[in-house]
Every structure is written in structure tokens, then in C-alpha cells.
């Protein structure tokens, strides 16, 4: 599969994530969109990993080139999990205080 397709797909998902972050007001949805962005990156990394592996495979059949890409995905997932736990905790804390998760509502701090 041409690598461009993966790039386009990934960028599309990433951009959809961005659009989501920019257009939604619900903090949880915004956060979900961030997760979507991360997943787009994951997909791209895996695709690149396979691309590099393919290139290396042509010369060295025992190569493990490209494995770092997949491992990076693994670490991204780790971080994402940690972030989610903290992020949701913060959102819940916020909700407890103001009974809303509307990010437009967050404007005590400005100017």
C-alpha cells in the first residue's frame, strides 16, 4: 500500500481531532479528540515503521529496522493512559466545583 495513503489517512484523522478540539465545548469531548489525534499519530508511526522495515528488509532479511516505531506507539499508549487518568481526575475535580465541563465556562482567568 503506498505510504502516502497512510499519511493522508493519518493526517485526516489528526485534523479531524484538531477540528474537534477547536469546535467542541465539552471538556471530555475535547479530550477525546486529543486521543483521536494521538491515535492518528500511532497509525502513522506503525505505517512508517513498516515502510522502513520494508526498505531494510530488501537488503537484510533478519533486520529489525522499524521496530522502534512500533515501540514508540507502545509508549504513546502508556503516556496516553497516564494522561487520561490525570486528565479525567482534573475534569472530575472541576465538575465537582462548578457542575459543568464546558470549557467556555473557564474564563475567570483572562487578560
Amino acid at each position, binding site marked *: 500500500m503506498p505510504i502516502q495513503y497512510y499519511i493522508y489517512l493519518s493526517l485526516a484523522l489528526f485534523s479531524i481531532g484538531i477540528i474537534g478540539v477547536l469546535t467542541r465545548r465539552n471538556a471530555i469531548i475535547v479530550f477525546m479528540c486529543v486521543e483521536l489525534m494521538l491515535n492518528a499519530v500511532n497509525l502513522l508511526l506503525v505505517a512508517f515503521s513498516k515502510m522502513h522495515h520494508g526498505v531494510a528488509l530488501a537488503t537484510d532479511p533478519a533486520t529489525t529496522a522499524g521496530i522502534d516505531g512500533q515501540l514508540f506507539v507502545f509508549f*504513546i499508549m502508556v503516556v496516553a493512559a497516564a*494522561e487520561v487518568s*490525570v486528565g479525567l481526575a482534573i475534569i472530575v475535580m472541576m465538575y465537582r466545583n462548578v457542575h459543568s465541563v464546558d470549557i467556555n465556562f473557564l474564563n475567570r482567568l*483572562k487578560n
Partner: protein
Amino acid sequence: MNAIILSALLGVVMMFSGIITNNKSVLKYIAAAGLLLLIAANLLDTYALFKININTHGLLSFEKFGLYFNTLAFGATLVYVCLSGSDIEKAGINVAEYFALIFFVLCGISILSGFNGLLMLFLGIEILSIPLYILTGADKRNLKSNEASLKYFLMGSFTTGIMLMGIALFYGATGSFALNAPAIIPTTGGINPSFLQVAALLLLFVAMAFKVSAAPFHFWTPDVYDGAPGVFTSFMATIVKAAGFIAFIRLFQSQSVVLGPTWKIILSFVIIATLLIGNITAVFQQSVKRMLAYSSIAQAGFMLFALFAGNDLAREGIILYSVAYSLATIGIFAVLIKMSDYTFDGFNGLAKKHPVLAFTTTIFLLSLAGIPLTAGFFAKYYMLAAVVKEGGALWLVIIALFFAAVSVYYYFKVIQAMYFKEGDAETTEITGAFKTGLVLLAAFVILIGIWPSIILNGFYF
């Protein structure tokens, strides 16, 4: 490596010490002792006396520059703990956990000063950021703190996304996460670097600019610094930010070949925007805390010069700048935290009530403004000198100097409030030890202002 392991361990120790005692001063002493230990361990590492040797497979590299920065960062943290440690309880009751988080942040800093690939950069930044999200929201019943925390978190994770996209594209272009890897895919134009690598670096640049609050990616800074409990703002705005710069420079210095001349245009745009927004917006702030937030943006503008110049002088300069800026800001925040009113009016008449506080604050403010005989002067001096040495960007230096003059305006507003205005600056209890600490710190700031080599020689000895 010593520092990374020990700081993580110390984090755990602090965590558990919370179970044993809840006495804040005991915790403070434990933390201070831990920091001393950390400094010692790091120094041992620096001089190759005792090293925990772990094969990092090239993911981390510990050279003098990074290790020296670690020492300074830990030292600054020690100063911070000594001055503001007892005020941490103002933020919330979980003092032990806060100290633990601070140690985790230091772990992240140690990684950032030694990363050798994008993976460790990513991990380091996350280890740095996640505790900060928490610390920002530490004052749980304070809506501002909540808001700051959520804002910081949302924007931070968004930026993480951007950064990861950059890393992915970088990986696509080079096939590696290592910084020194050349583009494995030959470029069409011969000398042109891979487009995707450049685009990747651009996205990484945006992400790093966000972390060091360079405009126009600075928006989180005022709100978060303002909303976070004062003690943690102090920590975030100084040591953490300096670490961000170290990472920034580490990342981009290795890529100078890849970055074309356009890089400088974009960078100078960012520098000017940062100086402009930081300085100009600070002028009309009513709250000293918020003013300091903007001022930290402004100072970031100066620190970006190191990136712009990218020479030896810049490397020395960024260290000196970090120290000068951090010490002065820690000092001011230590005083600010003691105030019951964070607005400028809250400082009215401080000179009468607490002349020592006012005097030392004045020294710190002068240092931030870059007045000679204080550390801040040589910090700015090195930054500008680095740029001038590269040649051709004198106009940028002149613009920067103009903004330095603007910065005098808002820094001196504090001095005016303290000395020239009548008022009853209410503070919490000021101990003699605190005053002594401030005086020592101020003396050190002046000492650096006269002999900057006491910091810079650390590179060579």
C-alpha cells in the same frame, strides 16, 4: 543517570514520608536533604567519581553541559525549597505528595538535559508535565486553580498531540528517533532536507515553543501561572521553564543543518512576538503574580536568542540566563507568596514595614530588568552577545533592548509601590531565617552580576 534514578527514588521516599509524618517542616527538611543528596550524586556523576552505569542504547547521553545544568536546577530547587518550602501547605494539605511530584519533575528535568532521541524527549516532557498539571490544580477548592489546571492540561495534551505528529513525521523522514540521524531517504533537490523532516521539526518547534511559553504559543502561561498556587508557579516559571529551554536547545542545535535560512525568519518572528506580547501586556497588569507570568514570557523571548545564535556563547548564556532568571524569580515569588494581596497595591509601603524584603525584592527586580551589577545583566548580555557574534541581526538586538526598556516599566512599578507609596503591605509571618535566606540569595545575585564566571566556570572545572 544518577540524577534520574535518585530523583525518582526520592519522589517515592517523599511519597512515603507523607505517611510517617504530616509535619510540613520535617517534610521540608527531608526534601532539602534529598536535594542535597541529589546534587551530590549529580556532582559525583559529573566528575565521573561514581556513576550508575546503565546501557541506555544511545537513548540518553550525559555530557558536561546537561549534568551541569542538572546541578544548577537542583541547586535552584534547593533555594526554592528553602525559601518557599514552608508555604507549600498554603496550596493544599498533601505536602508530602507535592514534594514527591516536585521530585518527579526533577526526574523529568534530568531526562530532558540528557535525552538523545525523540523518545526520551517525549517521555521526559510528559514526566515533567503530568506532575505540573496536578500541582497547578493543587488548590482544589479554588476555582482559579481548577481552571488553570484544566486549561493547562487540555492545551498541554493538545500540544503533545502536535509534538507526536512531528515525531512521527520525523521518523517517517529519517527512519529513526535519534537526533543525529540523517535523512535516510535521499532528497530530490540534493541539498534540500526532506520536506517532511522540516515539517516535523516545525511541529516539534511549535510544541517546544508551547512548553517554554514563546508567543504565539504562550496563551496558557498567564492563566496557568496566575491560577496555580503561588509556590508552584514559582517552581514552574523558573526551573521547569529553564529545563524546557535546555531541551529546546538540545533538540534544535542538532538540527541546524536541516533548518534552512527560513528557520531564522520564523524564529525571529517568534522572538519578537514573545518580547512584544510578554513585555507590552505586562505593562497594564494589576496583579504582580500575573505581571510575573507575562514577564516570564518576556524573559523567554530573551532566552530564545540562545536558540537563534546557537553558538558556544549561547550555550553558556542560556545557563547563566536560567540561573539568573530563576534565582531572581524564586526570590520574588518567595516574597510574593508571603503577601496577603497579590496586586501592586498590596506591595504599597513594604519598604517601611519590611525593609529587608523590599530591598532584596528590589535586587531581584533589578536583576530581571537586566540592570548591571545584578546577575540579570550578564544573562541578557550573553544572549545579545551571542546574537551579535553571529552577525547580521543587530536589528533584532536593538528591538530586544527596546523591550528591555519597556520591562523596566513594570518591574519598577513594584519598586515604586514598595518604596514610594504609602500603604500597609500585609504579610504573613516573616521569620528571620527567611530574611537571611533572601539576603543570601540577593547577595548571590549580585555576586553573579559582578563575576558571572562563578557560574560559567562550572563548565570547565
